[in-house]
């Protein structure tokens, strides 16, 4: 019942991506380059990880698994930064995104492994790595969206923020609306996934488990667990990033401090 894909099948899909890139280039939407790079990366990265995944899952060394987790978190932090139109200068951007990923994804994965799943040992890689991966993948998207929205809107609405400061509002009050908007932007993808799960979309992990022969109810339970983990992880991550960045956007005299931002990348 397993139908193998031929290189021809894949190239057909690749042509679609290529066409999209060309269309975007033609319409001057400026996403083609990023699109091609991401498509190439997904191919190479998945091929590589596919080759070593069995070896990885066979590993029992906690140090090795922590190292893998550490690399995953750093890469996710780095990717968040690359999605930003304006970023904080220095190590602040990387520090804030990676730190927030750690607090949300890593700690929640730990909690899930040790208390909920109770794998033996708790760091069993066939649970730990995919779980952390799913959490990071989703949290990363939420954080990247929320962060980008916060900084972009603060930049564009500078007159409004300063007007609010002139009226004697605290820095926190002055940016509250923008932060709320950024929180919404960061949470929309996961709220969409939860609302549509089962009706519109069949989550990949659950479907995979059922196809592989697991009892549907068991697979569904896992999927719900994952959804809730992802949601709380994303929420925590976005909240922490928004809080830290809005602190960083003001100095100690509650003045907007845009000199802490790099110039917009083109």
């Amino acid at each position: 019942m397993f139908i193998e894909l031929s290189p021809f099948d894949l190239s057909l899909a690749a042509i679609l991506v290529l066409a999209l890139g060309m269309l975007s280039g033609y319409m001057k939407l400026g996403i083609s380059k990023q699109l091609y790079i991401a498509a190439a990366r997904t191919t190479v990265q998945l091929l590589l990880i596919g080759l070593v995944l069995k070896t990885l899952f066979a590993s029992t060394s906690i140090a090795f698994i922590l190292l893998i987790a550490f690399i995953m978190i750093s890469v996710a932090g780095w990717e968040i930064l690359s999605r930003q139109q304006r970023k904080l200068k220095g190590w602040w951007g990387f520090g804030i995104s990676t730190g927030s990923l750690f607090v949300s994804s890593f700690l929640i994965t730990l909690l899930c492994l040790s208390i909920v799943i109770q794998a033996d040992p708790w760091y069993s890689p066939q649970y730990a790595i995919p779980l952390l991966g799913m959490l990071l993948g989703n949290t990363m998207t939420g954080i990247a969206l929320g962060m980008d929205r916060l900084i972009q809107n603060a930049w564009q609405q500078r007159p409004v923020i300063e007007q609010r400061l002139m009226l004697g509002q605290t820095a926190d009050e002055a940016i509250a609306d923008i932060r709320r908007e950024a929180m919404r932007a960061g949470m929309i993808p996961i709220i969409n996934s939860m609302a549509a799960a089962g009706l519109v979309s069949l989550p990949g992990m659950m479907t995979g488990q059922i196809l592989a022969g697991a009892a549907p109810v068991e697979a569904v339970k896992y999927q719900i667990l994952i959804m809730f983990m992802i949601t709380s992880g994303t929420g925590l991550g976005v909240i922490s990033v928004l809080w830290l960045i809005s602190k960083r956007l003001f100095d100690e005299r509650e003045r907007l401090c845009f000199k802490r931002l790099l110039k917009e990348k083109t």
Partner: protein
Amino acid sequence: MNSLSITKLQFLHCGPIDLQLKATEIMGLSGASGSGKSRFLRALADLDEHKGEILLDDINQQAIAAHLWRQKVALLSAETSWWFDTVVEHFMMKELAEDLAALGFTQDSLRWNVSRLSSGEKQRFGLLRILQNQPDVLLLDEPTANLDKNNTRLFENFVMEYLSKHSACAVWVSHDHEQLQRISQREYKIEDGALINVY
């Protein structure tokens, strides 16, 4: 009594500036565009970085939280910003019939849509909005630049009445020397980063 005392104030290329403002006094300020008038007001409101000491009576600007300082030392910028749909949403106190009338509005005007305000209307509403904090010092950046003669007079009288009622003081930036002579006791101009007494 509310007096503002400025000692060795430095910002950008300007200063050091020393200045005293007494209660109910209006200080006129002029100078070419880009000379630093707006920056001067922003420094007084602690919205820009600056050096030197600024005291309101015996309260040091740097000794209290910045937002509390800005409630006392209020800046009305040349361009005001409005972020809600209607004017009234920007006001804490909604019963302003008397003040509105003094500036040529009615209580009904508060319900106006922000998107259709003229720049002159924005400046007059902006004044009312900033006065809700009952500031002790008013920093007015070309506040009547977009007003006709009649509304300019209303605006001037309204500010002077507020100052005497609250024994507050004001710095009034304007390009209109006749206006400054009419309302201010002293006029200064900023030239090459220095504050020069005109009269």
